């Protein structure tokens, strides 16, 4: 068996690929099942990319629409999860670019006047350091982590989200983001360095 055939049979064992093949044959119930399987996962990752729950839902809906429109041309050449997140990544990138063209505030950046990335986390951490007894409550920790995530660039952020929440291997992340495995390794290493730096004060306290 050739390596192509081997990987093809591997993909065919993916239950979501099997669902998608049923969708290709006109099984709408299979598509509803795919929507149920992926809606929360997609929206959660997209939310952290665009920082807007409504935009995340719109993008997720668009992902499903594109899959459905092209269902008749589907060929199982990858794991379903990498394929769907690849579409999501492309749509999110397009959305960010369009937003940038309109000279609006970047989707992934906090709004003006709100707590800004990095600086706020440092202020908060310094504040905590001035009051050693004080325990930062969960909301503050959440804000610190959110700001640390915002300090990553778009590609670092996606790689982190896919690795952390989708448990994707470097190879799968590479397939999703159109990168080599070594590029993913480097990307994640630098991303984790940024996270560590951003959260350093909190980790020390």
């Amino acid at each position, binding site marked *: 068996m050739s390596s192509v055939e081997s990987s093809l049979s591997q993909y065919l064992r993916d239950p979501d690929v099997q669902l998608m093949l049923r969708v290709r044959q006109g099984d709408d119930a299979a598509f509803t099942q795919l929507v149920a399987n992926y809606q929360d996962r997609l929206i959660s990752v997209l939310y952290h990319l665009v920082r807007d729950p409504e935009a995340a839902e719109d993008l997720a809906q668009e992902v499903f*629409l594109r899959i459905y429109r092209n269902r008749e*041309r589907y060929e199982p050449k990858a794991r379903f999860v990498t394929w769907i997140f690849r579409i999501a990544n492309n749509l999110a990138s397009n959305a960010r670019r369009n937003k940038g063209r309109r000279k609006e505030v970047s989707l992934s950046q906090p709004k003006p006047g709100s707590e800004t990335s990095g600086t706020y986390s440092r202020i908060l951490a310094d504040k905590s350091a001035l009051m050693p007894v004080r325990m930062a409550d969960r909301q503050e920790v959440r804000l610190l982590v959110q700001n640390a995530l915002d300090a990553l660039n778009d590609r670092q952020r996606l790689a982190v989200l896919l690795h952390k929440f989708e448990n994707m291997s470097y190879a799968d992340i590479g397939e999703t983001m159109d990168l080599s495995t070594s590029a993913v390794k480097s990307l994640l*290493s630098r991303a984790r360095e940024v996270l560590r730096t951003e959260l350093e004060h909190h980790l020390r306290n």
Partner: protein
Amino acid sequence: MNDVPTQPEPNSPSEPKPAADPHENLVAYLDGELPEAAMREVEQQLAQNPVLRRDVEAFQKAWELLDELPQIRATDQFTTKTIASLKIDTLPAESAAKSAPRTRAASSAVSADELNSISIITDVRSVSRRVPSPRGNSGGKAKPLAIAAWFAGLALSAAAGFLVTNRLVPSPAERLLQDLPVIEKWDKFKEVGSLEFLKQYRELKMGGPHREPPP
């Protein structure tokens, strides 16, 4: 269909080049992405270097803190809306343009009931598409004719309904008009008190054939 519908994002020029990162192997070790030999090498380094051990610990803790990020879930209507949008999307373009929009931005005002009705409409349309038309390709011309016939039928029904109610059901205003002379002289009639006397009075006044001779 691995040629995904949109173009992949080109590599950003600001993207750092791979390698030259002293922590790459350390992070890959934590992620379980190193081959056996490289893993043993990192473990040896960690055993000898307390600074590296602190780095690993910091990387690990920072990574665990990501669990604090909010997990956003789809709204209750997401599946319904998505499936309804898909059905509308598969309708002919002109029908879809008049029907429900695809995105939340455009459909935020659409209620769940409206979406249900959209689903029903699209279901009905999909069923009707499956049923072959006995008129074959003339369906395009027959549709406007059928709609015109429906409107004509509705107008006729409305006219018939108006006539029936106007003729058969007594109108309170009409009855009042008939009784108006009596109503106008009601006070005088009340004073007389006897209907028999009034009849006699009328005959007397008119001087008719039934006039009785004076006693």
